[in-house]
């Protein structure tokens, strides 16, 4: 029976060695196993030298064999691909800046790829003409109602003007529309749109960008008298009726009794033109048809000087040689651009920042150690670089969020950008400051290994809070959990060279 147990134990011991050998790289396994089996033989001889089989001896042999696992682990670790660069990067300033740079690049790349952002960007880059006014009769109670007759418009257009150098006219009426390209709604009432018949020069005068234009670019003003009239969809109608389909340019729709071709989409919100127009028809006959409409005029330099407020009274000659009392209302209702929104939201976030975190950088030191000006410069440069990378990251990510989806209305997109920018700036700056406070002033690596020191209820302790250490062995950071009059803010404890032995092998060079 004893011989059987001895045989079973030896088999088990060999099994342990074999199992451990699996951790050793194949090229070194044979020699490693040979050494351990040789040693095992001697251990077995030594343990059984007292004579006979004993559990105590077998336990010693098994303990010896168990030691093969740490040894095999050494080989396994040595055989693993080394990551010295990665290890050196852990928590380093360079790693932080690389991540922020990658985020900014990803945000920018996404902004280049998302069609909604691309469309908005092209819109921002094309400025609407300044110095435009809407002219209406002074007696009108609301600028939403048309008041100017086409004859009056024609008389102004014919005469040489001192204050205006361009006029455009449009009138709005409801007309049935049948989208042949993509019937979107089965509701017959929904197929009645507000159609604006405008003088061909309207978009030229406005300088309003028309996006998603026909693949073959056309001159809207020159082509207005062509066989198939060109129409411009409003952005609202484009999204509502065609699901923001970018392939809509060039399609034809039936507008009333005639067929028209969609030339593009006019962005909403660029100018607050009254009328709630769904589709613009550039039609030379618009200024001859009966009814009243709206007149948009462009101010000369002299007219701009006279336009000292957003709404001024003007007097004009009427077609019957009388005088008309009119109002000129500035069409400067352009929505703020994304840069303006970003700056505004960023400013708000700066104001709100002290409410959620302390703006101190926690530079206080326990001992009278004073870092060199070069290191302080390095620290401030790192802080500036973080903020410089954070700002474009938030800007592009907020653009991606707000304008990435073309189905979001422009006003909602602006609110979304405002909100995302504010949140991003607020919490981003909070992170920047917190991260800065936890960076070793010597090597700029993040302090790690937090340890709780003391208990807050035991006030006899000098301080209680969290202690973190720089893995480079340069500093310890003490953060009080309960600020007191003698320990209110975090402090750095600079370690001298006598501490180096604790950090042997992990000490990165100080920059």
């Amino acid at each position, binding site marked *: 029976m004893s011989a059987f147990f001895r045989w079973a134990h030896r088999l088990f011991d060999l099994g342990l060695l074999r199992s451990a050998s699996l951790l050793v790289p194949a090229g070194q396994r044979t020699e490693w196993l*040979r050494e351990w089996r*040789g040693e095992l033989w001697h251990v077995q001889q*030594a343990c059984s030298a007292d004579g006979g089989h004993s559990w105590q001896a077998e336990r010693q042999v098994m*303990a*010896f064999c*168990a*030691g093969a696992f*740490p*040894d095999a682990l050494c080989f396994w670790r040595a055989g693993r691909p080394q990551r010295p660069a990665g290890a050196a990067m852990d928590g380093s300033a360079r790693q932080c800046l690389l991540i922020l740079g990658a985020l900014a690049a990803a945000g920018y790349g996404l902004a280049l790829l998302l069609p909604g952002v691309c469309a908005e960007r092209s819109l921002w880059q094309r400025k609407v003409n300044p110095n435009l006014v809407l002219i209406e009769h002074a007696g009108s109670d609301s600028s939403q109602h048309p008041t100017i007759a086409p004859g009056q418009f024609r008389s102004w257009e014919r005469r040489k003007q001192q204050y205006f150098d361009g006029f455009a006219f449009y009138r709005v009426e409801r007309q049935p529309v049948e989208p042949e390209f993509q019937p979107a709604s089965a509701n017959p009432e929904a197929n009645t749109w507000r159609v604006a018949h405008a003088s061909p020069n309207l978009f030229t005068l406005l300088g309003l960008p028309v996006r998603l234009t026909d693949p073959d670019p056309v001159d809207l003003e020159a082509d207005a008298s062509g066989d198939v009239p060109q129409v411009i969809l409003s952005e609202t109608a484009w999204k509502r009726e065609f699901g923001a389909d970018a392939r809509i340019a060039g399609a034809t729709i039936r507008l009333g009794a005639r067929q028209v071709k969609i030339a593009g989409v006019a962005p909403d919100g660029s100018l607050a033109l009254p009328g709630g127009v769904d589709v613009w028809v550039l039609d030379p006959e618009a200024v001859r048809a009966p009814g009243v409409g709206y007149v948009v005029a462009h101010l000369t330099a002299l007219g701009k000087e006279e336009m000292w407020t957003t709404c001024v009274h003007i007097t004009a000659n009427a077609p019957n040689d009388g005088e008309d009392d009119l109002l000129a209302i500035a069409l400067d209702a352009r929505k703020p651009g994304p840069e303006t929104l970003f700056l505004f939201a960023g400013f708000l976030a700066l104001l709100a920042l002290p409410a959620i975190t302390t703006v101190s950088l926690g530079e206080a030191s326990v001992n009278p150690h004073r870092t060199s000006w070069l290191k302080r410069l390095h620290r401030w440069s790192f802080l500036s670089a973080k903020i410089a990378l954070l700002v474009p990251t938030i800007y592009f990510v907020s653009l991606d969020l707000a304008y990435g989806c073309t189905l979001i209305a422009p006003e909602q997109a602006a609110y979304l950008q405002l909100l995302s920018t504010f949140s991003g700036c607020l919490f981003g700056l909070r992170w920047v400051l917190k991260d800065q406070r936890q960076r070793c002033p010597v090597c700029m690596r993040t302090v790690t290994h937090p340890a709780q020191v003391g208990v807050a209820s035991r006030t006899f302790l000098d301080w209680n809070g969290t202690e973190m250490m720089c893995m480079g062995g340069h500093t310890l950071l003490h953060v009080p959990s309960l600020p007191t009059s003698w320990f209110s803010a975090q402090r750095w404890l600079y370690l001298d060279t006598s501490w180096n032995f604790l950090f042997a092998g992990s000490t990165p060079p100080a920059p």
Partner: protein
Amino acid sequence: MAREAKQPDTKLSHTAALILQALDAGFVYGFSIMEMTGLPSGTVYPAMRRLERDDLIRSQWEKQSIADAEQRPPRKYYRLTAAGKSTLEASRKRYPLLVRLIPTEEAKQV
């Protein structure tokens, strides 16, 4: 792969210094070092790997004929290198009890 030998002033852990001292005292294979120092196999062998990696010790297989003559498997013997001897000298100054724990005379008596 070229290895950079440790400088004589390299600071060793107590375990590593103990193993160097045991080798210098004539305990030249793993099990004998275990017996002499009282350290477990899981400590001694990995430490010897590191010492060998740092060129402080060097290993050599016993000749098969000798092992065959004694009807046992061959052993792997370890010995100090020049760098190892210098490091051991420095360690003896750092750990004065090292020589008392493993006197080199003992090896001569065995």
